Structures are given as C-alpha cells and as structure tokens.
C-alpha cells in the first residue's frame, strides 16, 4: 500500500485521538493550575496539588479505590479464573453456563446499578440495608464481580485453550494430580493472560464510576476518586480542583500499569520451566 494510503487509514484515528483525548487532557492539565472560571482567572500554580495532599476526602476516596481494587481482584479475576477452570471442558451444559456467566458483562453498568439499587432500597427492596455504610464497598464490589467475572472467564478460557495439550499429557503421565496440573503447568502458562487481566482489572478499578454514582451518591464513606472529582465539577463548580484530581488519577493509573509491567518480568513462565516444575 502506498504511503498516502497508509496515511488515509491513520488520519481518522489520529484526529479522533487529538480531539477527544489529547486536547481535553491538555486542557484538564491546564485547568488544574487555575481556579474556577469567573472574573480574573489567575494562575495559582500547585495550590490544588498541595491541597490534594492534605484533603481528607481525597485520601478517603483513594483508600476506597484501593479497597475496591483488591475486592474486584477477587470477585472479578479470581472468580473468573475459577469459572474458566470449572467450565474448561467442552459440553452442552458448560457451553450454556459460559453464556449465563458472560451475559451480565454486555449490560451497561448504569442499568445494573439501577436494578440492584431497586433490590437494595431501604424500606421497600428485597435486600434492604446492603448499601449501609459498613457493607457498601463490599456490596458494590460483589455487583461488579457479578457483572464482569464472565468477561475474565472468557479471557482465561482462551488462555487455557492455548496451553499445548502435550504439556498436560506429560504432566498426567508423570502422575501429576489436578492441583499439580493447575499449579505447576496451567498457572505458569497463564502468566500473560493473568497480567492482561490484572491490567484491565486494576485500571478499571481506578476508572470505576457508574456503579458508585448510581448506587451511592453523596456517600462520602464510599466515595472514590472519580466521584469526588465529578462532584467538584458538578456540585462545587471547581474545575480547578476537579482537574487536579483527574490528573492525579491518570498518573496513578499509569503508575499501576508500570508496576504490573515491571512485575511481569519477575515471574518466569517459559515452557521448559513448566515442564521441569511438573516433573519435580
């Protein structure tokens, strides 16, 4: 294909990236150094960043984000992996169950939040009090797990399907039981899939918004960074501080990705290593 042809394919995506990602991101970064719009928009430097370092609401929301991150790690990724291991074999029942578990992930989180919100309504719902302060985060994480464990199940099923059958056979021939097959052969082979899942889960946990906004509005004990920053824009008309939180959140997501990328190198996962481990 000629160079012009290649450019023609590239330019639309670049334009979309410029207009919907780069320009707004740059504007957000600029806004984080200015107070709310009004007469006299003067540069305030790092005022909002310094404020974020001492703002207890931001610290609480960040703690909630981390709690949510580890809960979804269990409810989404771990449960997804267990489902994949349980439904690995081909069969009509397994095929049906795969569809059942995957179905919620095609629904909008807002819709899911509204449905569960009705079920948990105080005074009128079938499971009232599930969103009370002491259990709100766990409940929301469980809902998120219900919605997305099927998605991770599909990812892990693909990973399991890619494991060479010879490895499994070799392990069985050497007397490996189900647990050893999983721990010594399948898990190392799923290393790349696990890291992709962790990447999606962790970045998703920081970007979470819909469920919290629909189920737990104005609940500062369950606020996460994204709901706090949206409130700064919407409720308090402070795009300066809201933009600051958005920048900090972006940096945290990038840091998470970098940590996961670095951790990937620490886990050996070659075929030879898996075979040697199965023999031992």
């Amino acid at each position, binding site marked *: 294909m000629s160079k012009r042809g290649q450019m023609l394919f590239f330019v639309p995506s670049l334009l979309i990236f410029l207009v919907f990602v780069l320009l707004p991101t740059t504007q957000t970064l600029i806004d984080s150094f200015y*107070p709310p719009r009004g*007469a006299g928009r003067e540069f305030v430097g790092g005022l909002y960043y310094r*404020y974020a370092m001492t703002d207890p609401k931001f610290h609480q929301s960040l703690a909630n984000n981390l709690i949510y991150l580890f809960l979804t790690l269990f409810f989404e990724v771990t449960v997804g992996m267990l489902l994949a291991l349980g439904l690995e074999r081909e069969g009509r029942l397994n095929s049906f169950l795969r569809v059942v578990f995957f179905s919620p992930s095609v629904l909008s989180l807002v819709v899911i939040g509204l449905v569960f919100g009705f079920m948990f309504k*105080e*005074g009128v719902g079938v499971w009232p009090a599930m969103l009370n*302060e002491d259990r709100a985060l766990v409940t929301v994480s469980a809902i998120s797990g219900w919605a997305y464990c099927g998605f991770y199940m599909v990812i892990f099923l693909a990973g399991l399907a890619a494991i060479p059958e010879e490895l499994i056979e070799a392990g069985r021939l050497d007397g490996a039981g189900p647990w050893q097959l999983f721990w010594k052969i399948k898990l190392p082979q799923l290393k790349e899939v696990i890291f992709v899942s962790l990447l999606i889960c962790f970045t998703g946990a920081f970007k979470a918004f819909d469920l919290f906004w629909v189920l737990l509005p104005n*609940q500062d004990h369950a606020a996460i960074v994204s709901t706090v920053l949206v409130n700064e824009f919407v409720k308090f008309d*402070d795009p300066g*501080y809201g933009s600051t939180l958005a920048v900090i959140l972006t940096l945290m997501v990038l840091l998470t990705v970098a940590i996961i990328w670095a951790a990937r190198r620490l886990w050996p996962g070659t075929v030879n290593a898996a075979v040697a481990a199965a023999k031992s």
Partner: protein
Amino acid sequence: MVNAHLKRWFPVVGFAAALVFTGDHLALSRSSPERLRFAHTFTADSERTIVNAAIAEFEQEHPPVKIEQVVFNSETYQTIGWRLQFHGRQQPDVFFHWRGFKVNYAVERGWAMDMTPYLSPGFLDQLLPSTVQRIKGGIYLLPQSVDISNLVWYNQDVFARLGLAEPATLEQWREVCLRLRAAKLLPLAQGNRDLWPMGNFGEELLGQSLGAARLDRLFQSGTVVEPTDLRGLGTLEFFRTNGCLDLPGVLEPGGIGAMSDIDAKVVFLTGKSAQHIVGSWFLADIADARAKNELRFPVGLFPAPSGVGELDAMTSVTTGFLVNPATKNPRAATAFIELLLSRKYQSQFAALGNLSARKDAASFTSEPLGQRMLEILAKTPVIVPPPDTGYLPEHANIFYEVCGKILTGKLTVASAAEYWNDQKRNLARKGL
C-alpha cells in the same frame, strides 16, 4: 508535484478554515429582539400547560416576539445546568433560579440584569415584601413561589387513633414521637442519602436556637463554630437514639443514610410511617397519590415547632425568574415575567400546590393544606435559607455532612463542632 498536492488539498483546507471562522454565523437560533429563550424546570404536564398558555398570550400581545422554551430536568439544572447555560452561544434571555447564593453568583458574573427600569409601575407592590430582595439596590430576581423547606406531614388517622394533637413546641413533638414508637409505629420516615433533606431540617433547628444572624455566621469562612452553637442539633441525636427514625421490619437503624428522599416519601404515603418531614412541594405528591386512589389516609401538616424559649424560625427559599443582560429585548423579557407572575397564571400554579409570592395568594389558594401553608408562612417571623441555596456549596456541604453523620451515629453533637471546624480549615487551604 507540489502544485498537484496544493490543488488537491487547498479546497479541503479552505473549506475547513471557512467553517471554523464563520461557523458562529451558521447557528440556527440566535439571540434577537424578536426571539426570547426561556430556561426553566417546569417538567410536569400540568405545569407546562400553564407555561404554554402564558407564552401564547404573550406572543399574541407582543408581536413579533416569540418565546422559545428550554426545559431542564430540575436535578440537572440545579447542579450544573444553571451555570453551563451561560457558557454557550445560545444563552437564555429569561431563566429560573433560587434566591440566595445562586442569584448572587449570577449577579457577580454578569448573568443577571437589574430589572428596575423595565418593571411596570406598581408591579412590585403585588408581591410579598419578604420575597423581594434588592442586591446593590437593584431587583434581579422576580419571585414566583415560596417553598417551605421543612413541614411535618402526618397521618391524621394514626394521630386520632392514639389521641395525639399537633404539637405546639419541640418538647411536645419529641413526646409525640416517643408515643408513636411505643405504639410500634415508625415515627418518622426520612431518607437522607442525598444529605439535603435532614440537612435543611438541621438548618431550621439551628435557626430556632440561634436566630438568622448567628446562624449565617457559622457558614462564613474563618469563623469558628462553638459546641454550644450546635445545641439545636440535639433533636437529631434525640431522634436517632430513641428509635424515631427506624423500626424493625420497616427501616434498619442507620438506614436513613442509604435511603433516598423519594423512597422515604413512598414509605410515608403507603402508611408505613406516621410522619414525614419534607417541604411544601410534597403537596403535589399528595395530590397525585389522591388522584390515583393510592392514598388511604388523610394527611395533615404542622411546621417544625421550636423549643420553649427559642425563636419561631423557618427554612424557606424563594424561587423566581431573572433576565440575562445579554438579551436583545429586556423590556419584553421583563414583561413576560410579569405575565407569568400575574394573578391569572399564579392562581393556576397555586392549584398545583405552588405557594405564590403574591400578596393576594391566599385569595386564590383553595387547597386547604395550601392555605395552611400560606398561614404558616405569613406568621413566621424568622426565615432562614436552606444551606444549598443560601451559602457557598462547599460550606453548605460540610453542614449537610454534619447532620448526616449525627443521624447515623458517626458524630455526636459534642464532636460535631470540631468536625465542622476541621473541614473549614481544610477548605481554607483551598482558598475558601
């Protein structure tokens, strides 16, 4: 080769540049003396019918002026809509607003016009003086209605069955609540998920114990809140510790923090609670429930009573209309507002439960509960604004959180002042 490139791309680039520089002139609807944009939150069919009729009459009497409605959802408008509408090219000429912080904000930013030069002679005399506010000597908001933020709506059948009378003092009301609880009834159905319902009630309690001036001081930057300033919030603590807000099988202790105001309204209207504290707008919900045959008991109301020795204060907010100084026809914009606030259309709004700001409102408010509300309004000497319209949102939010945390046991009245001061100090680091 270069010429070929230029020839091919010049028309594209030229068109794009032309669009960028002239796109503004392609806007389909632009501000003009003959077209007024009217932004409001009248979403109910019954309200829209009245507004449409007023617009039709105005257009007939003021040709060739046409009025274009911009209808907002109330929740969207009061959070973000009322500000964002001024950031575009198609700003409203006439817009709805709540008196207090939001009006002051609009005036400071040049979004509101002093209507004094355009008002008809004697028009202001038709309105209740307490609803007409002068800012820097000018009239920026013409009041349409007065919302009473806290009224105690009660099940008259339950009160009659237990031999209870409408309490005249706070002490009597506490006694009523205890008797209701002893009779295994939920005394109060309250949903404070969004913080403002009981926050507004807390404001009224403090207004009764402190008065308007001292209360106002608490919401200012730099002032220190003393524990004695918050003694009025002891009623919230009383309700929580004496089970007035919960009942096994209906509402779990602490559930008030997770329930919305709409769900609390449903709990009351379905007869699961004896009382419900909410504003005067609840009359429309009662009328709706009656019309659908869903209300099985007669409803009464009384104002939240003040304690012995306290002030008779009430939380209330005036709503009305403003004119954008960027309008091309300020005279027509003001005349349209005057028509909306005329007796003819205010009487139609009153039939929907609206408390008109007109002096003659009592003569066209026929609904008994509506008449009762007007009497209460007329007799109350001290009016305090709800925090979310009277003060800076950040400071209002702190107070709402204080009330919310007292109701869920996270704070006591004794520790609330320290929490409030901590939050104020935190805001000061942000320059607020």
